[in-house]
């Protein structure tokens, strides 16, 4: 009984909306942006496509609006410092959530991660806060902790650290401050605690 039901459901999914695998999403992207897709690793543990920073906003609008892709939910934006390489990688994890037939369970229409690589020094990329509003806070966080500038961001301020904080803490070469506003920091040298190396 259970088996039969499962088969029926998957069949229905084939008729209606089918889950795109990362490979297919990458093919569609490559066909539309032959110069925009720099690299694709769709069979890796984290299927992703690397997109040229100057085309990222255009690609983002396409990803959201193309009816075949409809990647309507931006799940997460993560910045990864690739130090000692002079690059910061922005990872945008996307998923397509589509209504199920007859008001039922919504379905996963496909997932992919988009990577945009920017230089560590003065790296900047167009903001996608107008494409997925949730990017607003995620990008503020990436700016705050990693120092990537987002052009056209509606509210380009720090988000977690205070406004007068110096430096971007999640950079690999970040030096921990000795004090903040005259308050001395607890350091390993003082023997009262440990800090990261």
């Amino acid at each position, binding site marked *: 009984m259970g088996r039969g039901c499962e088969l029926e459901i998957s069949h229905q999914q084939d008729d209606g909306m089918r889950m795109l695998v990362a490979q297919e999403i990458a093919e569609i992207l490559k066909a539309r942006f032959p110069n925009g897709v720099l690299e694709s690793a769709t069979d*890796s*543990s*984290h299927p992703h496509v690397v997109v040229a920073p100057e085309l990222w906003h255009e690609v983002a609008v396409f990803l959201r609006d193309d009816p075949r892709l409809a990647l*309507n*939910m*931006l*799940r*997460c934006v*993560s*910045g*990864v*410092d690739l130090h000692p390489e002079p690059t910061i990688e922005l*990872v945008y*994890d996307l998923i397509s*959530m589509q209504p*199920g037939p007859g*008001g*039922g*369970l*919504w*379905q*996963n229409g496909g997932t992919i*991660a988009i990577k945009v690589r920017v230089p560590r020094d003065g790296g900047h990329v167009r903001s996608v806060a107008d494409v*997925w*509003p*949730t990017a*607003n*806070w995620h990008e503020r966080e990436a700016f705050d*902790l990693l120092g990537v500038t987002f052009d056209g961001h509606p509210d380009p301020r*720090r*988000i*977690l*650290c*205070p406004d007068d904080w110096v430096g971007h*803490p*999640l950079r690999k070469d970040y030096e921990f401050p000795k004090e903040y506003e005259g308050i001395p920091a607890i350091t390993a040298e003082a023997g009262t605690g440990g800090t*990261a*190396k």
Partner: protein
Amino acid sequence: MDEKIIQAQPDVLVDFDREDAAAGDLRTEEMLINMGPQHPSTHGVLRLMLRTDGELVLEAIPHIGYLHRCAEKIGENVAPFQFIPITDRLDYLAAMINNQAYSLAIEKLVGLEVPERASYIRVIMAELNRIASHLVSFGSYGLDMGAFTPFLYGFREREYILDLFEATCGARLTYSFITIGGVTIDLPDGFLERLGKFLDYFEPKIDEYNDLLSFNHIFVKRTAGVGVISAADAIAYGLTGPCLRGSGVKWDLRKCVPYDMYDRFEFDIPVGMPGGTNGLPREVVVGDSWSRYFVRMQEMKQSVRILRQCLRQIPSGEHKGKVPRVLKLPAKEVYFEAEGARGQLGFLVVGDGKPIPRRVKVRGPSFCNLCIATHVCREVLIADVAAIIGSIDVVMGEVDR
């Protein structure tokens, strides 16, 4: 100032009964009000900057970061096992689920198998913790709306769950119980019987609380139709969990992208329904504060259902798989999301061929849920801000990380 009085006075004197005309001439000044960081209805150290015109909130700007403890920086300086206690402190009301999500992410990265019994124990702990977390949400939301008693009831029931946790792992809030490869120790003797007794006791209580608070006339008046979020907005702003389902989107990772043993259980996914149907109050609108709150109440029932199935299905066997003492993380990366009590808790872990990851990124569901606050708290009353923020149910430990 003088000019204004002179302008306003003739109207008031001549057309005293024409209130609207007088109101049109009276200009009021906007006022900035700081709500928080120490305010009972901001659930922790959330600071909202309210731009108000009288009782009307024109704009609410959240300021976060008061609880920022650099969890992600710690994550990239310690081994995965050492990071598990830090995950406890993200969403401290549902620490088991945080442990579970991070463990699953690392297992996916390294390629570890988890014994079946361990997976069942994880589901038991996660669902119990979901109930405990929703009970706090239920109680404190009542408190926000001026009902004190539900808070005591919520905490009374939660105490039984914490006792079960204490019997299992010794801790009542930050457990570090679910770990990479399984769980740290097997369930204590008599645990399943105690759990069964608790479920028998607890299930009827949910209906009692619905009668007490959910359908209470004053409570409905305060929350129904307030802070309506459409399904399209909910998705665009990255809302997940009860906030997304309150907007009528039937999406739950436990069903849509199952992990651990969730594909073996039968349970429903409650979503926001229009008022007047299924015995809901007429004032209710899909996506309002009441719907978000009520989804949580119904989810507790579903968790009870899952737990009962666990009790029937749980096999004997190992509680932890074979895990090397030092985990060498391959030079790969994974992004994994689990359905937490507040939404999808995601971990991006980038390995580097060393025992310490290059990067650990936490997608806190409360962080994403809170970012819609400015959009929703527009042209609402100050009292409604408390209703909206309470219904989003943020835990600041997870927002600020």
